[in-house]
């Protein structure tokens, strides 16, 4: 995005209820490129902004399967193929014993998939973000609720959109520098 111009317009609300309402309104008004910022997860918002993304569970499942396969493969290859050793009269392929490491690797890889997946899909780490340019945005992690309509929204028009946001009875509407 270019340094000049505007990232978007941001409206600040006193309480979650207004934000949820505002979000509904904005979508109803046909705005697509908008996001809400809240100090804690609000389920109502997901539905209001109709966010549905099922990538993460798939990732975790994949991770789990991969981890399991790797774990068992490790046990099998080392104890049956690479250097078979007669240990305690047990067969080289001691499946029951191999279950434990397999289980652990399954969990491990799945967990990594969950965390890295979440961060990756959220595009984190991203220490710099335009929304931080608005001083009051610091309150987004405390007690204020923000709705931001981005400039790249086709329907975005500096004046009209500002007017629209004003109509949602926010405590204030601000420009967000890019």
């Amino acid at each position, binding site marked *: 995005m270019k340094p000049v111009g505007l990232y978007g317009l941001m409206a600040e609300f006193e309480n979650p209820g207004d934000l949820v309402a505002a979000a509904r309104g904005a979508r109803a008004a046909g705005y697509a490129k908008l996001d809400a910022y809240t100090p804690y997860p609000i389920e109502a918002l997901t539905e209001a902004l109709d966010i549905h993304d099922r990538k993460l569970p798939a990732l975790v499942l994949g991770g789990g399967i991969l981890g399991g396969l790797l774990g068992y493969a490790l046990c099998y290859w080392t104890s049956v193929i690479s250097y*078979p050793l*007669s240990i305690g009269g047990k067969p080289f392929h001691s499946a029951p014993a191999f279950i434990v490491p397999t289980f652990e690797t399954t969990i491990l890889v799945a967990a990594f998939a969950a965390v890295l997946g979440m961060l990756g899909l959220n595009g984190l780490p991203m220490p710099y973000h335009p929304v931080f*340019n608005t*001083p009051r945005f610091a309150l987004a992690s405390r007690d204020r609720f923000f709705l931001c309509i981005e400039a790249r929204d086709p329907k975005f028009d500096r004046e009209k959109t500002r007017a629209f946001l004003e109509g949602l009875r926010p405590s204030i509407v601000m420009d967000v520098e890019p």
Partner: protein
Amino acid sequence: MQVFHRSTNTISRVSVFGAVFFLALLLWLFDALNRSPYTTLQGVARVQPVQFSHKHHVGAMGLDCRYCHTTVERAAFANIPPTKTCMNCHSQIWDQSPELEPVRASFRTDRSIDWVKVYDLPDFVYFNHSIHVAKGVGCETCHGRVDQMPLISQHPTLQMSWCLECHRNTEKYLRPRDQVFTMGYVPAARQEEIGQRLKSEYHIRPVLELTDCTTCHR
């Protein structure tokens, strides 16, 4: 307010991935170093009191290994020849050469020549020359083309993985008994066939037995 500059986004992502690769690199380096001649002394020629040349004695003059290493067929240790053996010839030829003064000195003073050990296994490894020779493992297989080495140096890594390689695939290395002391031996037919045949002929024990710990560790 904005705490970080734009560029930090890129920096942070790069550093996250970088860290992972850096760690991997370190591990790889460590392993490489561990297998490198720096650790194994593979192919590193040592300074000896007498710059004895196998190339000359074996390659040029064609001495048999057993002329000096007399016990190789009956004992675990392929002995380093006594000074007497050197003097057998060198009391006649090169008997004035300054190179050989340490040998003559040893013979005079009755003090051993102080050789630096080249093939040096850890003390918890028990290697037996006689059995390998008896089973058709050529000197060359472990010691390399000694007949081309002016100064002897360690041919293999002497790491356990190297030992196992042969104990697991004997057929790849066996040669007829009469070829054991040959340098530059070329198999008459495909090595696999010969190897398989000799394996049964010489009653080579199965892999599981050859890779038992007590085969080498006691």
